[in-house]
């Protein structure tokens, strides 16, 4: 009886989509190459996941609130490039980072206005923004990476606590905990879930729907830019294409983590698992000596499975 209830409550968890494939993956990869479980390798996976997770936190809010954003990859590259230009111009690290975040905020304001205020479809509108931002980056950098940063900047991405835990993991941890608290404990978080669940009801209950939606778009782009800055520090160079392609994998990670793509439900914890799962797959394929070309196929299958679970769960709980 107890076991039945336990399995039932497990099935009801939104994060289920990550736990099963993760367990399966760990068993398989453990057999093929036990070296996978070395502490260094695990920390490496977590560091890779951190860059994505920093963006996945606001994306969890965005999708739980019923929105989507395809421009985050471009915002990531944009943040790194702005920061690099500012550093090259001799500005102090703190100012350079502020400028990058401000650049991200501008993208967010623009996204928020065209999607929320002028009601353009988010999918196409942010796709357009993605192209435009990538265009600006290509024009200004001539598609060349910018490098040669001071160690004061590089340490932000390369430094390690106790000589083993990378700083980005710590940033991700802090941002994740903050995100979790805001989503589950605050009036803001509750409003976001209500908007994603039923924007009309939320509006008629007196919630400032547009303001909240715009604020999430801004936060999303700011955190994307931050991730871009950290990646530039980590690799000691700002790549014009640092974030390209990540918009889909990050949204996939969030959906796999149990955030409904129809809005209304989502957890930051689930998104963390989703990011770790995707980073683990990439790493496991390398460790097992499998061509990385398999990676996209596996991502795709897991994403489709996650959407199936999302859909099934919604039907089972009475929605459509």
């Amino acid at each position, binding site marked *: 009886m107890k076991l039945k209830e336990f399995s039932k409550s497990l099935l009801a968890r939104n994060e289920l989509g990550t736990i099963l494939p993760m367990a399966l993956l760990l068993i398989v990869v453990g057999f093929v190459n036990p070296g996978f479980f070395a502490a260094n390798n695990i920390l490496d996976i977590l560091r890779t996941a951190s860059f994505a997770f920093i963006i996945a936190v606001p994306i969890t809010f965005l999708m739980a609130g019923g929105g989507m954003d395809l421009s985050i990859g471009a915002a990531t590259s944009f943040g790194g490039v702005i920061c690099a230009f500012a550093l090259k111009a001799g500005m102090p690290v703190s100012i350079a980072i502020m400028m990058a975040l401000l650049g991200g905020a501008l993208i967010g304001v623009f996204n928020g206005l065209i999607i929320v205020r002028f009601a353009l479809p988010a999918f196409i509108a942010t796709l357009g923004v993605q192209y435009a931002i990538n265009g600006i980056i290509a024009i200004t950098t001539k598609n060349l990476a910018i490098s040669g940063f001071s160690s004061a900047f590089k340490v932000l991405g390369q430094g390690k606590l106790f000589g083993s835990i990378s700083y980005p993991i710590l940033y991700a941890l802090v941002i994740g905990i903050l995100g979790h608290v805001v989503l589950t404990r605050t009036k803001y978080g509750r409003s976001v879930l209500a908007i994603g669940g039923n924007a009309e009801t939320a509006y008629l*209950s007196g919630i400032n729907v547009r303001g909240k939606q715009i604020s999430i778009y801004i936060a999303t782009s700011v955190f994307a830019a931050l991730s871009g800055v950290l990646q530039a520090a980590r690799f000691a160079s700002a790549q014009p294409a640092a974030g390209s392609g990540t918009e889909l994998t990050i949204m996939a990670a969030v959906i796999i983590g149990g955030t409904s793509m129809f809005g209304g439900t989502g957890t930051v914890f689930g998104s963390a698992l989703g990011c770790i799962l995707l980073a683990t797959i990439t790493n496991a394929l390398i460790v097992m000596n499998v061509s990385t070309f398999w990676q996209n196929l596996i991502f795709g299958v897991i994403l489709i499975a996650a959407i199936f679970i999302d859909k099934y769960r919604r039907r089972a*709980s009475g929605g459509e």
Partner: protein
Amino acid sequence: MEYLLEMKHVTKRFPGVVALNDVSIGLRKGEILAICGENGAGKSTLMKVLSGSYASHEYEGEIWVDGKKSDFTSVATAEHHGIEMVYQEMNMMLDASVAENIFVGHLPGRLGGVNYRKLYADTQTILTEIGLPIKPKAKVRGLNSGQLQMLSIMRAISRKPRIMVLDEPTSALTDQEVNLLMDHMQRLRDSGVSLLFITHKLEEIYRIADRVLVMRDGQVISCRNVAEVDQKSLIEEMVGRKIENLYPKKKAQIGDEVLKVEHLSVPHPTIKGKNIVEDFSFSLRQGEILGIGGLVGAGRSETLGAIFGQITNGVQMKLTAFGKEVAIRCPGDAIRAGIGFVTEERKKSGFVWVLSIRENITLASLPHLPGRYFIDRKVERRKAKGMSDRLRIKAPSIETRIVNLSGGNQQKVVLGKWLLEEPRILLIDEPTKGIDVGAKAEIYSIMSELTGTGVSIIMVSSDMPELVSMSDRCIVLSGGKLTGAFEGEAITQANVMRAAIAQ
């Protein structure tokens, strides 16, 4: 063979409701049979049976055409018999031409090609016949909704039907278009087509119908020659239901005026240049239940929507709440003025289905929970539990998702959402729509209790007994205009119905 089309003892059940109860109707060749009745009398269900939208195994009873029993398995059966439906909602391809819209599915031509010359010529013939001054090649997007309605009628006519069923075809039309339509309906009848004409407008019934059939609560009440029926008996037959007072309203202390709405005009949601509410003024006093009666589409829900800030585009009104003039730009403004709004569509605009009872109940009062940013979970739980107990919401716990509740309990949660905000004025649109008898009585008792504490309620209701027994005062809208105001003993079903079909 007396009848071209006959429905024999048709009964259609939905869970908990009998929409059609042993309905028998006969339609003669070359006649116009008008069908009238209140909202929810069963007219739409009747249309769906006739159109084949419900397959024959989904209801009891038989349909006979040309004296032979026919098995209506799908929409194709109805089309095969030459039955054409004209619905109120119009499905048009907005970027195609008038001609293409009329002949869609039956375009002239061979081998997949379209003979455009014939298409335009045939269209022009129909347009001329009816007398509508539009061009066959015109894009449909540019037409107004009256012309669109005429187009859907022409679409039916172009298929040369033997039987046409029209569902309130004149509600979107101008007077001139109504004349064109009536004339053409008479021509169709004279050429041997039979028409089933659903309408609320007595004037139209007397103008063109041969016989009139009254429906009420899914039953046929009468079917007589129009010449033998007077208006008074027609109205009485439409509303003549016995009022069972499930929960007599306690008399509340009626106080001073708390809300005054002056010169309210709301633009029609789909028809450009037309108002769905036109220069409507009324007031509400403390502790009273003001009922608003009228037919669907009379502008009642739009009135509530405008007061609450749900509808703001193009709305004109002067609203005075508790002696102060208030500008309503969004629902937040109305809430701050002490107003709450229980909408008609619970699922669409009343609750958030992914959230729990607790989260739904505290949704409107989130800003007033203690704490600036954080939700004090203890206080929230206590408040939600208190409200849930007060309204006797039946659920395993307040953490239960609202979708898992019955309609009545969902409605109580939506009510609770507003009561927690302690409004002084409550707008309720169809308070007991789709909920069972027991829950109905409980909702009525809650409303009575509220007015006892000085809350004022504006209630829109299509449920006649509810409107008559719960209202302290009742005003009636018809075609967006105020057509009746009754108080006390004068609130009767017949009075309300007469005012509701006035326009």
